[in-house]
């Protein structure tokens, strides 16, 4: 055990002394996390999305303003007029909105579609618009039936009604199937899985190949240490490197990109450490099979990118064909990502990720056995 720890700690020290380590462990992942997070971000959280809507309020009177505050209270993602290009829908409040209502006439609020916007966004906005209008009518009805001054609609009277606590409240959440993680909730686990696999494959594979070439592995094998201890030490060193990467990602995700890591941080850490073990074992296996360090690096980059893409690190598998989802189940990246989304985005606990964890352990055992089998001097 002592020798396993010594080999692992020395390997970690060597990895961190490598000139490219800080670039690939910290700089590039940060950039990818930011770019992919920004590119995939939708407004709001996945359970309570806020598609952006532009309100064109031509009414200068108080009822126009009151409708605006009611729309805002309904969790509508109101846009600044300068951002009109990003609006999913436009709501137009006519100039005579207050005048008509105060005259007890009907007033039509226009709800316009914008080209290229999603129907699901429209549905959300429409629901909130209807709820806002119902709420507004309720307030008007309450003001109109007030026994002290019936039929009189003043701004102060309506504000007083609005300020009162509503005796009935309705809390809504995304119903039906689970929402697709987006923004940094997608880019954090996706990039973490991708860079863990990539870095542990490259550092593990090229280090083993290089140490075999310069004779360090041969030297280890003539020392009073068993081959299994050497393999375990190498994998342990890679897991430590993975832990550095995991801590960096989770810290940046939480404190810079404000990703809530869910209530099960220990479960998240467990899934990631098991995945680091799988990736480290694959790294040692690749280095044991392929002799040239340069070829190892090239192969590892290609393999990790392919595993990341098919595993769902680059785009949500929900938007692809069913075949992609099936393919992702053949790879450890797919299972790791599935478990992380469950824990981070959907608030699941450890028992909910037992199957992905068991599959990852299976991958790890297989890779471990193969690495031990093919490890040579």
């Amino acid at each position, binding site marked *: 055990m*002592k*020798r396993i720890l*010594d*080999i692992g700690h*020395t390997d970690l*020290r*060597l990895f961190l*002394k*490598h000139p490219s380590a800080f670039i690939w462990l910290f700089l590039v992942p940060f950039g990818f996390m930011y770019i992919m997070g920004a590119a995939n971000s939708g407004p709001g959280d996945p359970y309570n999305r806020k598609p952006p809507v532009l309100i064109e309020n031509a009414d200068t009177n108080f009822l126009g303003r009151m409708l605006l505050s009611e729309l805002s209270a309904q969790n509508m993602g109101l846009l600044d007029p300068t951002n009109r290009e990003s609006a999913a829908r436009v709501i137009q409040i006519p100039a005579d909105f207050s005048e008509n209502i105060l005259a007890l006439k009907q007033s039509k609020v226009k709800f316009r579609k914008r080209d290229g916007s999603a129907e699901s966004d429209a549905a959300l906005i429409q629901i909130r618009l209807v709820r806002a209008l119902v709420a507004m009518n309720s307030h008007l009805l309450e003001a109109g039936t007030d026994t002290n001054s019936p039929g009189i609609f003043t701004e102060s009277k309506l504000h007083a009604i609005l300020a009162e606590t509503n005796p009935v409240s309705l809390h809504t959440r995304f119903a039906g199937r689970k929402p697709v993680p987006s923004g940094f909730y997608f880019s954090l686990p996706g990039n973490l899985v991708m860079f863990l696999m990539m870095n542990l494959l490259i550092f593990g594979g090229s280090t083993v190949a290089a140490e075999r070439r*310069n*004779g*360090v592995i*041969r*030297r*280890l*094998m*003539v*020392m*009073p*240490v*068993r081959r299994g201890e050497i393999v375990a030490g190498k994998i342990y060193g890679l897991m430590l490197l993975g832990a550095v990467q995991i801590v960096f990602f989770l810290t940046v995700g939480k404190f810079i990109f404000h990703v809530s890591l869910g209530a099960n941080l220990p479960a998240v850490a467990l899934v990631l450490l098991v995945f680091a073990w799988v990736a480290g074992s694959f790294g040692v296996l690749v280095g044991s099979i392929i002799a040239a360090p340069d070829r190892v690096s090239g192969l590892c980059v290609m393999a990790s990118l392919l595993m990341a893409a098919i595993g769902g690190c680059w785009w949500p598998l929900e938007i692809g064909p069913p075949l992609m989802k099936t393919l992702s189940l053949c790879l450890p990246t797919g299972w790791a990502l599935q478990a992380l989304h469950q824990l981070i985005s959907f608030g699941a606990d450890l028992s909910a990720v037992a199957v992905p964890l068991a599959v990852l352990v299976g991958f790890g055992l297989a890779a471990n056995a193969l690495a031990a089998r093919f490890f040579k*001097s």
Partner: protein
Amino acid sequence: MSLLKVDRLSKSFGASRAVDGVSLEVQPGEIYGLLGPNGAGKTTSISMISGLLQPDAGEVLVAGHSFAADPQKAKRIMGVVPQELAIYEELSGRENLEFWGRIAGLSRNDARERTRELLAALTLTDRGNDPVKTYSGGMKRRINLGCALLHRPQLILLDEPTVGIDPQARQNILEFIGQLRATGTGILYTTHYLEEAENLCQRIGIIDHGRLLAEGTLPELQERLGGDRVFVMEANFENTAPDAWPGFRERFRIIQKSDRQLVVSAIGTRDPSDCLRELLSLPVRVENVTLKRPSLNDVFLQLTGRELRE
């Protein structure tokens, strides 16, 4: 009891027989030189003795115990210095030594203390904290050697430890190895440098094409040539057949023949002046005759028909 006993060790790679029935012994306080050209089978022999390669046949005994029966026990007795610089270039000399000490089984404190001793013995204390990649070739070789010595092995296997370094650095390493021998350590030393084998080793085994052709002390090997002197004749030996000269084969052993040179040793104990007179009376116009002590190269020539440096 021998520290190392190698008995009829053999190894083939496909159709090529890399080591063919090599047997040797190393005693405590002895440096045994395994001398041979590149590709002779020296490194393959060391690899089998240290457990890196599985022999096809033969046995290795370390301090009287079969290596195969308990490899870990044998490895604790051994220190192996590989031919290549098997060290971490990014780490300092001190970090390298401490790491290999812990791998050899020392505690953290013992590894640190032993590292301090070895850095001093290898005259590297001043540079101990510098990364190895900043060292000269000779300094790297010294660290490479030191990494095998942390656990004070009784038996050291040195595989060409002075390859590619300058004469001064080589001399430093040879002196250090001589000091190790003085402490009772047994050393198996492979080399293709004649001078190293002649000056450093108490016994020498000559290996070529995987076979141990001869072994013994330097005088014993020289004796194979017929005594302590050889004659180097210079003449035009083109189209001549010395074996056909009357009585020549009965009196002289040919060590080497080329168009311009014939190297021979006398058979039996005879006066050198008689030998000289006989050589000058041969049916060839001799331009020059040199009398010299036989070197290991002459022994190698006689055994293989070619020079070690070829």
